């Protein structure tokens, strides 16, 4: 329906409706980005992050495929009354694509197995450190923050 409207400038109302819908999609993508940024600003347990955002990556990929198809269909609409719709669609594709890059990078990191640890050796060394008094503690979370502060 949208591509028909775009191909025929006379469907002004349908075009305005289409622009509104795509604009809402863009706002929805912006909301997802904010939630993603907020989660990573706080820090998230990696497996829970993969569970939450793995499906979103698949949905985002599907959206990008559909957007690509639709943009191909309306490729000739620049310079017509439907130009605002095409512009909004391209912006949606850009926003979604940028979000997808960050999402995929974070998911790839969170999905990687942790570094391999030689558990027997860790136990040996850690026990030796404990026996030698090479452990330290902090009385409060604030002390821990100060005690783990770097040289900045």
């Amino acid at each position, binding site marked *: 329906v949208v591509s028909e409207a775009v191909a025929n400038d006379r469907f002004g109302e349908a075009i305005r409706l289409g622009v509104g819908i795509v604009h809402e999609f863009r706002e929805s993508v912006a909301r997802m980005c904010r939630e993603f940024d907020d989660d990573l600003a706080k820090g998230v347990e990696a497996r829970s992050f993969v569970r939450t955002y793995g499906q979103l990556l698949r949905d985002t990929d599907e959206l990008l495929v559909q957007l690509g198809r639709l943009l191909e269909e309306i490729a000739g609409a620049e310079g017509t009354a439907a130009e605002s719709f095409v512009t909004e669609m391209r912006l949606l594709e850009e926003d979604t694509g940028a979000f997808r890059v960050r999402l995929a990078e974070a998911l790839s990191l969170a999905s990687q197995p942790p570094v391999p640890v030689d*558990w027997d050796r860790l136990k040996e060394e850690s026990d030796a450190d404990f026996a030698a008094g090479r452990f330290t503690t*902090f009385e409060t979370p604030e002390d821990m923050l100060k005690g783990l502060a770097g040289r900045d």
Partner: protein
Amino acid sequence: VRYRLEFRESVRDYLRGLPLSRAGRVRLNAALIEGAAEVPDWFRTDPANRPGPTSPYYYFFRIFEDGGRFWTLFVVIDDSTAAYGVLRIVYADCH
């Protein structure tokens, strides 16, 4: 907090040396509180978070953002003294 944390000095020094911003350090601290000082029993005892059924260790793995890039934090904790309210941070890897 639920548990008093004891850090191997080598782990403390490693964490101190990380090139994190002040906000990144606050996130690191929050991760240590959530993953160790306030860790719930269900997480600590979940076999998925332990190297083996008889191991004295559990671990947590987190992802956070600092300075425009993503960081992962892997921490190993000796919980053999959990009954006494003490957990020992024995290993950390953050990159």
